[in-house]
């Protein structure tokens, strides 16, 4: 990969080509979040959420995001999350109210249920655009906000048409590829747009999904044939109630079998396939995103991701959820430790779009657009 290849994006700072080639450097992302510190923040926010019967969850979301953003560094500057909890709460109330209306309506008006897929297809583009806009506009680096801009028509066209194709199953990788292109190419940092100039996107997505499906099928049969007989034999003595206690609650005796089946199928079949797909897609997308004449580079490894996801799942299960913050921190750390910005020149050239148009448009639209729907 040659990060100096000009992707047709003109940057105000890169006027002399020779200079650009000389100053190419790798800028690593850095994550300084600590599990113990994050645990304290997390548990207090969970407690406040429970005490307020869920209302505080909007504030909790903001504080958790601010911790994760604030500990993400690039070239000595951290990111900042600016989301307003009031707007998030409003967004959640709107979504909740919408769902309630839908449920009630589908009882009294049977045709609502019949056409609910159509309703969903109409609302989906709107939801995605709102969520992306909210997240982008509330993410800031060096006091310059990210942004997400698109027209309604375009979002609708992309999602309506593509969701129909994706719904057939065979079209799903194509849908994911086009959706990614749509989201990335409408994102910008300040006035500088992000781009995804890949040529082989669709083909690569199909290859990745096929490989993941293959991994799943092969593991399913191998694990099924080798492990299941062993498992059922190991636990068969427990299946017959032996003590007085077990006779009263024989379902207790069934838990080990159930648990080991659940865990072994999840950890040995689903997890490797899922981790492979996640790794491949993340690496492929991030390593192709360019901004001005910089390019990202992601180098996650499937084996590491399997270990990370698998140990996270087991730890969370055994700790009854209390290790969620620990799992979050180590996952974010691993991902950011393997993300780099291959830069040409330094990052000073980025310019804010705050002066002028957006300030006004942003204010005007904030009532309507800046409603967070990310859950």
């Amino acid at each position, binding site marked *: 990969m040659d990060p100096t290849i000009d992707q047709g994006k003109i940057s105000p700072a890169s006027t002399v080509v020779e200079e650009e080639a000389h100053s190419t450097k790798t800028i690593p992302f850095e994550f300084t979040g600590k599990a113990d510190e994050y645990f304290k923040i997390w*548990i207090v926010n969970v407690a406040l959420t429970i*005490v307020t019967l869920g209302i505080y969850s909007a504030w909790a979301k903001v504080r958790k995001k601010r*911790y994760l953003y604030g500990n993400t560094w690039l070239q000595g500057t951290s990111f900042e999350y600016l989301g307003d909890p009031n707007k998030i709460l409003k967004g959640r109330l709107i979504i909740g109210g919408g769902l309630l209306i839908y449920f009630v309506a589908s009882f009294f008006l049977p045709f609502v249920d019949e056409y609910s897929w159509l309703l969903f297809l109409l609302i989906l583009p709107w939801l995605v655009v709102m969520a992306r806009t909210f997240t982008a506009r509330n993410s800031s680096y060096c006091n310059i906000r990210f942004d997400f801009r698109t027209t309604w028509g375009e979002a609708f066209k992309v999602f309506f048409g593509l969701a129909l194709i994706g719904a057939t199953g065979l079209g799903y990788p194509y849908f994911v590829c086009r959706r990614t292109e749509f989201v990335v190419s409408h994102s910008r940092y300040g006035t500088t747009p992000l781009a995804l100039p890949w040529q082989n996107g669709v083909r690569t997505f199909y290859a990745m999904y096929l490989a993941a499906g293959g991994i799943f099928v092969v593991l399913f049969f191998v694990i099924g044939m080798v492990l299941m007989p062993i498992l059922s034999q190991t636990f068969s003595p427990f299946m017959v109630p032996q003590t007085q206690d077990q006779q009263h609650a024989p379902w207790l005796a069934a838990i080990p079998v159930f648990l080991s089946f659940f865990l072994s199928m999840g950890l040995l079949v689903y997890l490797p396939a899922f981790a492979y797909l996640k790794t491949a897609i993340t690496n492929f997308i991030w390593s192709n995103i360019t901004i001005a004449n910089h390019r990202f580079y992601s180098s996650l490894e499937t084996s590491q991701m399997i270990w990370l996801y698998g140990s996270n799942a087991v730890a969370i299960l055994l700790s009854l959820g209390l290790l969620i913050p620990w799992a979050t921190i180590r996952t974010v750390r691993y991902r950011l430790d393997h993300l780099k910005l291959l830069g040409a020149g330094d990052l000073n050239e980025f*310019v804010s779009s705050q002066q002028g148009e957006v300030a006004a448009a942003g204010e005007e639209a904030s009532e309507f657009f800046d409603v967070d729907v990310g859950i």
Partner: protein
Amino acid sequence: MRHIAATFYDGKTAHKKDVRLYFEGTGHMRVVGLGTDLVYPLSAVRITSRVGNTPRSLYFPDGGKCETLENDTIDAILQRQGKGQWQSMLHTLESRLGYVFLALVLTVVGGWGLVKYGIPALATRVAYAVPASVDVALGREGLEILDQVLFSPSALDDQRQTHLRLQLADMAGEIDEVQSLRLEFRKSERVGPNAFALPSGIIVLTDKLVLLAEHPNELTSVLAHEIGHIRHRHALRSLLQNSAVVLLIASVTGDVTSITALSAALPTMLLEAQYSRAFETEADQFALQYLQEHNIPLTHFADMLTRMENYKGTPGQVPDYLATHPATSQRVKMFQDKNSPDSGK
């Protein structure tokens, strides 16, 4: 004059500049750096609340911003100003071990209380407040779905069906708070001998269950159990409770990646099974009371339960069934124990 180190961003470009911040006694602050010397009234500066030890932002009215890691100094300045008490309280809660421990206890106890008492109580209230028309729609849709996935039309003769329908109508007439009951018969290979109570008073008996009964009172006891489900609105309550549990668990684990969220599926299933067992016990209590009031020996229900259990037989399938119902042996024992004092009558 004391100062702290910070980084200045003008908000127009990504260019960063090392500066020093001076806080002056006059309620002003000064930002001093190479080619920069700005003065702002402190009251116009928006300072973000503290989250852990992440950098603190000071936003100026002209769109500029300073970032500093000197959280303690900023806290001291805010305190002197008498500002940001609420914000600093949050950080105190989030950083002191005592409060963190309190939050842990509150989460565990609160979570347990919510799951054990809060959600069921709320679901009960909502279930009783739901208008009858919704109940009817739910029952109709529920039966439609079951007809599609599980049932085929019954093969029982009309006489038997009519007889049982009349019996149910008699039973319903005696019980308060139960209005219209509807008895349906369905054939199903998959569910074996079983009975279902749907919203709006629909009771479904499978052919196998009717044929399995060796005494009319056995079916009476099954019907009493199902009326118990309907009387207490169990179908609607379980729908509400299960959705609430899913929402609750999703809201706590929501920020984890989807693979890890899988581990939330197991506690969800166990909780839903626990709710289901509570409902079964409640319906059993109702049946027990009904049978006692009508001097029907409780052994009939115990016999029926035992026979249903034996029919299911194969212990390899136990988890599913036993997890959603209390152990049959336990239920049988309850009816046998209660039966003994009455059996002399």
